[in-house]
C-alpha cells in the first residue's frame, strides 16, 4: 500500500501577507475539501509529511523554517505556495528578506500565484504526494545498497 494515500500537511506562514494563508485554509473547506485525498492539516511537524510554506523567508524565521523541516520524519516533501515562497515575490528586494523558501531548505514543488489559487495549490500538493512514494522507494533502495556495501566490507 502506498504511503501517499495518507499525506498529512503542515502549513507554516514564513512572512506571508496572509493572502496565500487564507487560500491554503480555503483548500481545506467543504468547497475544495483536500481531505478527500486523505490530507489532514496537522499543526505538528512530527506528524507531517508535506510542509507547505507561504511567504518569503526572512532573517528572523530562517532558523524556524530549518527547525520545522528537521523535525519532520522522513520521507517528507516541501511545497512552496505562492510567488513569495517561490522566490521572494514583490518583497524580494527588502533588506530583511533572504528570498524564496529554497534559500534555507530544499523545495520539491513550486506553486506560483499571488495569491496562490486553491486549485493550483491542490495540483501542487497532488504532485508532492506522488513524490512521497518516489522518496520512500529511493530510501528503500538506498538502504539495500548500503547493506550490499556493508557485506562487501566484511
Amino acid at each position, binding site marked *: 500500500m502506498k504511503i501517499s494515500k495518507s499525506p498529512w500537511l503542515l502549513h507554516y506562514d514564513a512572512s506571508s501577507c496572509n493572502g496565500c494563508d487564507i487560500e491554503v485554509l480555503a483548500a481545506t473547506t467543504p468547497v475544495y475539501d483536500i481531505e478527500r485525498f*486523505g490530507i489532514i492539516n496537522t499543526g505538528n511537524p*512530527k506528524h507531517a509529511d508535506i510542509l507547505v510554506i507561504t511567504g518569503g523567508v526572512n532573517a528572523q524565521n530562517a532558523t524556524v523554517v530549518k527547525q520545522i523541516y528537521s523535525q519532520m520524519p522522513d520521507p517528507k516533501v516541501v511545497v512552496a505556495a505562492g510567488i513569495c515562497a517561490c522566490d521572494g515575490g514583490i518583497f524580494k528586494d527588502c533588506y530583511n528578506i533572504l528570498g524564496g523558501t529554497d534559500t534555507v531548505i530544499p523545495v520539491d514543488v513550486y506553486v506560483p500565484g499571488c495569491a496562490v489559487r486553491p486549485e493550483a495549490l491542490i495540483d501542487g500538493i497532488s504532485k508532492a504526494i506522488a513524490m512521497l512514494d518516489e522518496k520512500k522507494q529511493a530510501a528503500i533502495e538506498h538502504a539495500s545498497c548500503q547493506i550490499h556495501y556493508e557485506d562487501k566490507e566484511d
Partner: protein
Amino acid sequence: MSFQQVIYPSLAFILLAPVVGLVFSGYDRVLSSRMQGRQGPPFLQPLYDIVKLFNKEATVVNRVQTAMVIAFLIFSVFTGCIFFVGSDLLLVFFALTLAEVFLMLAACSTNSPYSSMGSQRELLSIMAYEPMTLLTAIGFYMISGSFNVSEIINRDVPAIVELPGMFAGFVFILIIKFRKSPFDLSTSHHAHQEMVKGVTQDISGNVLGIMELAELYETVLMMAIVALFFITKNPFSYVWAVLACFIVYFILILIDNVFPRVKWEKMLLVTWGVTFALGGANLLILDMIKIAEGW
C-alpha cells in the same frame, strides 16, 4: 476456565479487533465529512493512515517514551482479552486505567510543554470519567450478582431494561474516552487546537502507529461494553447489540460535530453531574426495588 476458553477468544480479539476498529474509524471519517457537507476521505482512510505511519521513521525523543507507548498497546490488548474471555469487569476497568497511565507517562516523559499539558489534561479526563465506569460495573453486579462478563451476558432480560441511567451515563463518558469534542481536551484528531496535538505531540512515525493501533483496540473494547447492555441468552440479541453500537457511535460523531471544546472545569462538573444524576439515581432505584422485593 480451561486453556481453550482463554486462548481462543483472546486470539480472536487480537486479530479481529483492529479490523472492527477500522470499520468504526472509517464510519467516523465518512460520516463526519458528510455532516460537514464535504465529500471526505474514503472509508478505508484510517487503514491508509496506519499503514503510512508504520512506513515512516520515528523521531524518538527519548527511550522511555517508545517503551511507554508499547506498554500502552500491550495493556490495551490485555484489557480487551480479559473482557472477551468473559472475566471480571472490575479488572477490565482497572487494567484500562493502567493502560491510560502508560499513555500519560509517555506524554509527560518529554520536554515538550504541549505534551506534558496534554498529559495533565488526560489525568483530569480520567478523574472525570472514572466514577461512571465504576458505577457501571456496580450496576452490572447489582442486576446479575456477578462481575463476570460471562455471567452478565447469561441472563434473560437485557441489562439496559434495568440500567437505562447507567447506559446513558456510560455513553456520555464515551465522549471523553474517544476524545470527541466537546471533551477532546488532551488531544484531538481534528486539526489545530490550542496545544497542537497534546498527548501525541512528541509521538511520531511508527510509534504513533502503535498508539493508533492501541486506540483501535480500546474503541472495540468500549463498544463491546456498550453491547454488554444488550446481550442476553438469546443469540438474536447480538444483532441488537451491534445495531446499538453503531447508533451510539453515530450519536458520538454527531456530538463531536455539534459542540465546541469546553474547559476542564466544565467537563468535570458536567460529567460528575451526569454520573450522579443518571448513574446514582439508577443505582438508588435498583436498590429500592431490591429492598421492596425483600419484603
